[in-house]
């Protein structure tokens, strides 16, 4: 017998729904908390959504936020945020800061003169400073970007649900959408809690989370659909449990490989995409949890029709694609 790594024992028989009131109730509570938190604390919107300018500085000298601020104050730029950036991928003498300047009254994008003035002011206190990136977004575009972002998340959710509804049953679709709302709410919530920068790439991450979470949910649903046909008289709760148990080792392994790849990116990928990768890492964890504890619970609560085998409309679910052959 060759050695095999077993993340999950060969045969498991865990009762995933034993603590349903706690797990599902906990999820509901967390979602509510996340929404309330986002509502009261708001999100730390990046310039994509708020307009303004960010300048990244890079220097061999240490960053002195106070001195930077002092150098910039005569320019009367309004709200200026200066944060030092730390990252394990930086060289020893590499000191990076991010300067954010609010959108200037009456201007669409910030004028080159302003940027030149900022750069000159910083160069007087630190001659070694360079500016590897300067980004400026006008209020007109930022307003549109936020609209597009909301539309895209909504459209994706609706499209995915429609697909699930077509391929499964409406109860599955409801379960999937609740799980998706759960994942999005918790991800947005954690960005609000830690006031992490929320920009366009985070929206991309949210959509990827949608894709990943639904991927996971569908795999368990697929097995559930198959088992519902196979074990017609077994109570729904037991069929659900059996399906989750049967797919458990796959769930753990796939989440594991995805998480490994994401963690590598989180550690070695540099600070520019850290927010994006963090959102995805968090989303994969939450998404894996939700496909078991949220989506299944909803299906369990709604109940589902049990006469799958009788009318094979479009073929009995489980083997619809079975004729694809290599």
């Amino acid at each position, binding site marked *: 017998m060759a050695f095999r790594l077993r993340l999950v024992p060969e045969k498991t028989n865990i009762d995933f729904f034993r603590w349903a009131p706690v797990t599902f109730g906990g999820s509901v509570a967390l979602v509510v908390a996340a929404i309330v938190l986002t509502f009261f604390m708001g999100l730390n919107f990046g310039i994509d959504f708020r307009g303004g300018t960010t300048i990244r500085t890079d220097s061999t000298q240490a960053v002195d936020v106070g001195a930077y601020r002092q150098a910039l104050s005569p320019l009367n730029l309004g709200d200026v945020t200066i944060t030092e950036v730390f990252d394990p991928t930086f060289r020893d003498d590499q000191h990076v800061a991010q300067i954010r300047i609010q959108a200037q009254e009456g201007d669409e994008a910030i004028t080159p003169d302003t940027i030149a003035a900022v750069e000159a002011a910083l160069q007087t206190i630190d001659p070694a400073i360079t500016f590897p990136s300067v980004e400026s977004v006008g209020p007109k575009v930022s307003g549109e970007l936020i609209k597009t972002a909301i539309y895209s998340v909504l459209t994706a959710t609706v499209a995915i649900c429609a697909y699930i509804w077509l391929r499964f049953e409406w109860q599955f679709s409801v379960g999937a959408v609740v799980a998706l709302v759960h994942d999005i709410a918790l991800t947005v919530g954690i960005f609000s809690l830690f006031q992490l920068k929320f920009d366009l790439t985070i929206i991309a991450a949210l959509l990827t989370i949608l894709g990943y979470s639904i991927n996971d949910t569908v*795999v368990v649903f697929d097995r559930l659909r198959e088992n519902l046909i196979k074990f017609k008289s077994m109570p729904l709760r037991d069929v659900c449990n059996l399906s989750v148990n049967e797919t458990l080792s796959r769930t753990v392994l796939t989440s594991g*490989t995805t998480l490994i790849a994401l963690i590598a990116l989180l550690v070695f990928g540099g600070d520019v995409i850290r927010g994006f990768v963090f959102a995805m890492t968090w989303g994969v964890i939450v998404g894996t949890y939700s496909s078991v504890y949220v989506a299944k619970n909803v299906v369990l609560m709604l109940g589902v029709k049990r006469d799958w085998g009788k009318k094979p409309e479009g073929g009995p679910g489980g083997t619809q694609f079975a004729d694809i052959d290599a």
Partner: protein
Amino acid sequence: MLQIPLWKRIVILGLCALGLIGAAPNLFYDRVERHNDAVAAVERTGVETAEQTAAIADWPSWLPSAIVNLGLDLRGGAHLLAEVQVEDVYKQRMDAMWPEVRRALVSEAKVAVRRIKGADSELRVEIDKPEAMEKAVEVVRGFASPVVTLTGVGQNDLDIRTEGNQIIVTLSEAEQVATDDRTMQQSLEIVRRRVDAAGTREPTIQRQGQDRILIEVPGIGSAAELKELIGTTAQLTFNQVIRRTSNPEEPAGIGNVNYPSAEEEGAYYILDELPVVTGEELVDARPDFDQNGRPAVAFRFNTSGARKFGDYTAEHVGELFAIVLDGKVISAPQIRTHIGGGSGIITGTFTPEETNNLAVLLRAGALPAKMEFLEERTVGPELGQDSIDAGRVAAIVGTVAVVVLMIASYGLFGVFASVALGLNLSMLFAILSAMGATLTLPGIAGIVLTVGMAVDANVLVFERIKEELKTARGPARAIELGYEKAMSAIIDANLTTVIAALILFFLGSGPVKGFAVTLMIGLITSVFTAIFVTRLFVVTWFARKRPKTLIV
């Protein structure tokens, strides 16, 4: 039983080979890029330098030379989103119409008229005799012509209404749409020519939505530099000088403007706003020197420009004449004699470089309307390189970790899955290269994510095979059933992710779009490798060894 027909084997292996060959140039990115640049340069200029010959020889031409484009965030460069002020053109149209309308009203409707200041996009004319209004409107209506568009059939290009003793002329809606479209096309073309003239690599110049232009130029120092290159206005006109003044606030009067001199501090010119000739009628402009050896720009008009210029100079001998660039009077020479032939030179306080740039700008033509910049981003090349390095390390670490985990979990089957993963990545790169897709930083993240998710289809199949083995119908049957039964989960799971990626692609922009493309292609190649390539390995291995028992 477990059999794959020969033709299928050939197709599968052929696709894998294509993937490997197509991805190969990306391993020699710099060399291939130099080769491609040199080939493009030789094609453009027709001459070949020794350096270019060496660069071309450096990569054999029989090998594929398509490589992924690096996005701005990886290569460094500038990104601009500009909004074209299409209404500017309405004003120009109205201004240009006014002299003719005036002439026609005076001679045909026998009324005295004057222009009243109204909105920029309208021509507001007051007539002195209200009883002649009907006739006047009829005269003005004579200027309208039908618009030919898909939707606007039967519509005229002008809307004419009256308000008391005023006639108000505006462009009709159909004409506005048509005008906007022309303005946009012209702006795009001019921006493209100006950016191309600077000779940067693979600029992206796209129309976005109704009135926007997206400009992305890799390798340029900053967005400010790019803006300078595009030139926000660069409009050249030749105007009649009404008088000189030293007061910048001096009211110019209706139809006139007050422009500063570019040469003399504190000198201003009151000019007739309507130009005699515009830069649009130039056919050539080149750097030159005047008789005193000062840098100058020589220009030549087309036939109609030459006639207008000739007529005007014949009628206004002895008067001053202003050459205006971007709202500044470059020079205001006196007209000594009638200038026929339609050519001349512009002198001013130029350096030879400036005359060169000015000549390029003039040749490229003026932008029909102003552009406002809504979004600008600059990424330095060092930051881009740092991101590439970081992405590469993450991809390698991620891949190695996934491979280790897969082999530890599935043994030989894990090896199959790992080889398939490698093929999957090379196919992904081959497709990205062939499509000319742009790889962005989120795109690299997409690839790393694909590495993690790609094994999912394999895991689904392997787990299924493992389950089927328990029912003890023999290893061959278990493998067959494993693939069969895992299929619906694989298809459903991946299609839903493709839906999310598609939406990202259509609604996202820039780097996000790049991410959507890599994610989508990654999903397709990973499904392909899982259900065809890994299966081919498993089946071939099984046919050779014929194991009695199977351990997955």
